[in-house]
């Protein structure tokens, strides 16, 4: 059924709340967004270094296997048996020469091709599959993949932009920045947030909230709106990056700027042990905060010395998992690895500067359920065309997200900005 969205404005500065709650719309998103002409973040190459290594992941709410075949090539395919629809791979990761569905032992090669059916020719001339059953054609749907500096992206689309064009110069530049040398996986964290997946995607594009909701940022000067920084987007405004530069404001400037802002205090306390915040710029650009978010499901994140990726995994219309992979570099000293782990206190489900997002999203989801036609207000940073900004008192990139979302869903506002 065709959807109709009353945007009220052509610049996506109003978004009706039913878009976060509608089951039918959610089903269409899984088709048109996640299986549409986009490059989804799947996993990191460093997670599957050896032939036979595999990881299970999600594209929207579709289970996907990413595996390295015997010849070293990387493949991704839908984790659903061609026979009766059972999940083929049940572990989160491992190493296997091939993948066998437990139900009737149908067997798949490392690239997801159906290669074996028990009793295919029957037994003693009886039973078996019809002779014309085409195993190759029946194989699980494969994704096209792209490996950008060790970041694996995948798409269901037969044809779409190249990943280089999709991410744009700024996106590719950020991938190269984070993955400029071999990495070492430090581990994972998972968080299940009772809110629509788009609330998380918006949160990543909302630089306005960062220094207000996450008061730890401000109190200890990890990230304040008074620092030099801004938001960058690709030409289509579907991806964005919140970023800030180390030590580019003073305590006095910050104190003046945040004076009188309800509930935010700079000098409320001192850390007894401040090693958590020790930061020596390790990138040439000297940014201490960089969070490029890639439509629809990916994020790279640096907060001081904590480095990671995040993947948004929708779990029905009212929930999503945030799956985070932390990493360091292969040449990190033991002291640096320890410092990255100490810095991990800042991020993830228990992160001192990230835990609040889970709560903020859940209370939006709760309060908007019966407000279908009413709309959220997105005007911080201005109305009209979406542009890069050299400040962060803005939520403009959220409008960029909605503009591209509307394009893919076929519901653009009349004359809507792009």
């Amino acid at each position: 059924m065709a959807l109709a969205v009353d945007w009220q404005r052509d610049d996506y500065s109003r978004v009706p709340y039913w878009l976060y709650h509608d089951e039918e719309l959610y089903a269409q998103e899984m088709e048109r967004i996640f299986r549409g002409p986009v490059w989804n973040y799947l996993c990191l190459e460093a997670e599957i270094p050896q032939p036979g290594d595999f990881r299970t992941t999600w594209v929207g709410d579709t289970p996907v296997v990413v595996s390295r075949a015997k010849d070293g090539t990387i493949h991704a395919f839908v984790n659903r048996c061609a026979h009766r629809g059972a999940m083929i791979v049940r572990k989160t990761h491992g190493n296997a020469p091939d993948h066998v569905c437990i139900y009737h032992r149908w067997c798949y090669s490392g690239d997801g091709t159906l290669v074996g059916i028990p009793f295919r020719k029957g037994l003693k001339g009886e039973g078996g599959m019809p002779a014309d059953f085409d195993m190759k054609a029946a194989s699980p749907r494969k994704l096209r993949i792209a490996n950008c500096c060790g970041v694996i992206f995948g798409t269901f689309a037969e044809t779409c932009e190249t990943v280089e064009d999709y991410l744009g110069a700024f996106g590719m530049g950020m991938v190269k920045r984070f993955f400029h040398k071999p990495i070492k996986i430090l581990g994972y964290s998972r968080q299940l947030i009772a809110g629509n997946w788009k609330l998380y995607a918006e949160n990543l594009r909302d630089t306005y909230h960062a220094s207000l909701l996450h008061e730890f940022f401000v109190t200890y000067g990890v990230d304040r709106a008074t620092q030099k920084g801004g938001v960058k987007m690709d030409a289509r405004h579907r991806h964005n990056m919140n970023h800030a530069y180390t030590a580019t404001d003073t305590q006095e400037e910050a104190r003046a700027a945040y004076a009188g802002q309800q509930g935010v205090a700079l000098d409320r306390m001192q850390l007894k042990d401040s090693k958590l915040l020790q930061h020596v710029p390790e990138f040439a650009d000297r940014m201490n905060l960089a969070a490029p978010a890639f439509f629809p499901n990916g994020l790279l994140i640096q907060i001081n010395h904590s480095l990671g990726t995040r993947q948004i995994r929708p779990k029905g219309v009212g929930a999503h998992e945030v799956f985070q992979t932390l990493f360091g570099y292969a040449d990190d000293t033991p002291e640096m690895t320890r410092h990255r782990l100490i810095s991990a206190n800042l991020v993830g489900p228990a992160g001192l500067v990230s835990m609040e997002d889970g709560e903020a999203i859940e209370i939006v989801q709760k309060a908007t359920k019966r407000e279908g036609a009413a709309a959220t207000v997105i005007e911080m940073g201005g109305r009209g065309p979406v542009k890069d900004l050299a400040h962060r008192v803005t939520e403009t990139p959220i409008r960029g997200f909605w503009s591209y979302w509307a394009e893919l869903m076929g519901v653009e506002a009349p004359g809507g900005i792009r």
Partner: protein
Amino acid sequence: MSAVPPAAPLAAFDVPREVRDAVGDLLAAYGLLIDEDKLEDWVALFDDACDYKVVTRENVEQGLPNVLIWCDNKDMLSDRVHSYRHVNEYNLHWDRHVIGPPRFLGQQDGAWRFEASYALFQTDLEGASRLFSVGRYRMAASVASGAARLRSVEVVADTGLVPSLLATPI
């Protein structure tokens, strides 16, 4: 299936009655102080040179070092509690710990090592309860004059998929 080091006793040993009692009291206080929102008193159960870590079983089984929380001394631990009190926002709730009996593993560096299972429930302010986390504690405590003090706590959470967020300690 499991890469978690086996918890078999290091060698045959006896656990004195006094130690069992002190550790039992410690575990009871540990859970109830958090549940009563006396987080500063909970911090006081630790030695000055202490370590508190929350990790997930998914990482431990893969030999991956990632932490959800890691305070490697008492100052960091009390910083975190101060931050909960004054800086962070999180879901408003009450905690309820159910902690199983300790299994003693032996003595090391003057401290008793033991582990115990836990279940942690959260109840929101309208009274709806949910299972928040299950897992086990791997702990070490020194015992003197009938009282035990925590030297290290490693929370290995089976519940790696954290519901909502993790603020108040496990």
